[in-house]
């Protein structure tokens, strides 16, 4: 659990803010984008603030490339202004009284560069991010995507060894978000140090991050590659984010007794004891008659409690043993004449069930 401990960022600390406590243990290697995913209030921004030196840790330590930034036990604390950190804030926090060029030149200037050198360093970054034409504008004359690029240029102009991004795309409207996201991915790839990216948007995390950490209520609940987390969510929150049905159960070979009632027949992986079962909503088949079941197929009755139209499909909320979310086509809804309260039969192939232990989901 210490990849690149010598050249990357290592956080093993507790941060207290009022009654809230954040406990984390993570590492981000150089060139890696570590995504922090979690609901509001999970402690994502608190973690970034601690790494940037805006709030001290209450115990434990933070190191960057082997250098201590904060160590509660030793009493070491490097002030925010002395940390080689570039921070892109959630609403960018561009200085409203300075032009774009002055904003970007701020860090080189504050870190001791002469006026002229700072200006040319800034124009270099403006050029790299395609902002040269906007150099003399004030922040209130920028679009959301432009402001995001300026914030990134301003953070990078200080030549940081570590880049922190707090919800870099959340201030953008849906139309520009994808473009800016693609561009951001390109710039992050060029950055050589470790990068920590906070988001509550799973798609953003899946696209931008190499490694993901899921935070809930101040604790890490899952870590892994985006692909693994999308396939084997460890908690209901993660399952909901990636759009899967998630059940806990007790496995005995191919039989899994579900905690919330009901049972599944799964492909036998020789698992025993507590397991998680993930099912895609589109893998479950809905019928009005009890299907002819084979042993490899799970069937159970359920009642529809809700229907939601999602672009090209309809999501059914179903109550049964177990309850499930199921995606079907609008045409199927009409053919089966489904409505809230309808009794239906659900079935899913054993091979469509992803069965794993909680420990599996934690392996990075």
């Amino acid at each position, binding site marked *: 659990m210490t990849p690149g401990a010598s050249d990357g960022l290592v956080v093993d600390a507790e941060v207290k803010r009022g009654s809230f406590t954040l406990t984390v243990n993570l590492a981000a290697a150089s060139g890696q984008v570590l995504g922090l995913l979690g609901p509001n209030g999970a402690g994502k921004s608190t973690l970034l603030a601690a790494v*940037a*030196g*805006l709030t001290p840790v209450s115990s434990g330590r933070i190191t960057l490339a082997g250098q201590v930034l904060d160590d509660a036990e030793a009493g070491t604390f490097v*002030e*925010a*202004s*002395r*940390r080689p*950190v*570039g*921070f892109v*804030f959630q*609403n960018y*926090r561009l*200085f*409203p*009284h300075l032009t774009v060029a002055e904003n970007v030149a*701020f*860090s080189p200037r*504050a*870190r001791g560069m002469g006026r002229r050198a700072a200006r040319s360093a800034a124009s270099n970054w403006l050029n790299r991010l395609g902002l040269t034409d906007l150099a003399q504008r004030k922040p209130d004359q920028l679009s959301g995507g432009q402001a995001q690029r300026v914030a990134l240029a*301003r*953070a990078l102009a*200080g030549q940081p060894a570590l880049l922190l991004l707090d919800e870099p795309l959340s201030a953008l409207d849906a139309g520009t978000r994808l473009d800016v996201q693609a561009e951001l991915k390109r710039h992050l790839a060029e950055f050589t140090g470790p990068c920590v990216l906070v988001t509550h948007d799973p798609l953003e995390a899946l696209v931008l991050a190499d490694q993901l950490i899921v935070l809930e209520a101040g604790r890490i609940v899952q870590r892994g590659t985006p692909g693994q987390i999308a396939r084997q969510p460890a908690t209901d929150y993660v399952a909901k984010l990636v759009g899967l049905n998630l059940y806990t159960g007790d496995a005995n070979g191919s039989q899994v007794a579900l905690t919330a009632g009901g049972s599944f027949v799964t492909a036998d992986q020789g698992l025993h004891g507590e397991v998680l079962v993930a099912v895609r909503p589109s893998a479950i088949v809905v019928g009005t008659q009890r299907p002819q079941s084979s042993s490899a197929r799970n069937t159970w009755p359920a009642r529809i409690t809700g229907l939601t139209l999602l672009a090209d499909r309809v999501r059914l909320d179903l109550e049964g043993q177990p309850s499930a979310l199921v995606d079907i086509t609008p045409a199927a809804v009409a053919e089966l004449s489904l409505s809230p309260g309808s009794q239906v039969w659900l079935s899913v192939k054993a091979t469509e069930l992803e069965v794993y232990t909680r420990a599996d989901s934690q392996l990075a």
Partner: protein
Amino acid sequence: MVTRTAPSHLTARARARRSARSGAPRSVPAPLLAPALIAVAFLVLPLVGLLVRAPWRHLASVLSGTDATQALILSLWTATVTTGISLVIGVPLAWVLARTTFPGQRLLRALVTLPLVLPPVVGGVALLLAFSRVGLVGQYLDSWFGLTIPFTPLAVIMAETFVAMPFLIITVEGALRSADQGFEEAAATLGAKRMTVFRRITVPLIAPSLGAGAVLCWARALGEFGATITFAGSFPGQTETMPIAVYYALETDPAAAIALSLVLLLVSVVVLVSLRDRWLRGGSVQ
């Protein structure tokens, strides 16, 4: 209970007016209207009197009389120096009050704002007790440096600073409290030391309030009377400021008193106009 639905007359114009004000009736009930008009008359009539009785024809010659000119010049430069001193020492104090916590802070804030409500003449007496030749501090200034403060232009400046600086301090402190500290955090992560943050981010961001506070402080210093006459006296050319000159001129040369008052009125109007965004926006005064 019976609901009365008897109609009253509403003309087309009244309808338009009412709908423009989202339904609120515009007519004022008589029990409110009469006192309101009395209040307006009370506030406006004296100013009208001043304008009507002003010696408009001789204004220039009256104002160029040596005493009036001296008082005008003295008032202008002492009020300006007072504002400068208040900026240099008052803004840091406002920062300390807004951005730090320490024991006794509430007491300190109360002491700082006390001159706002203290009768200025009491301030003058207090200054005299501290800085007169036999005062708490003044006796040492006199015996060590031969420095005597009372009844000098320096005393004028001290009296004005005592009374006017709190206006600047509370204005700036309020602005610092409501300013978004996120910008200061951002500056820190960009490598700016605390003084750099103060100089390049904090001060520019509160510049409008800083300007308003300075104008307020300058206007209050210009009008200062009680503390000044008590602590600095009224020597023409030395310590006789405009308000004091007006007061004495009223007995000897009423035309000059009125002319000087007009100048002060003009200054007040200019100040009000320059602060209009802060003070004249109905209901949102901070």
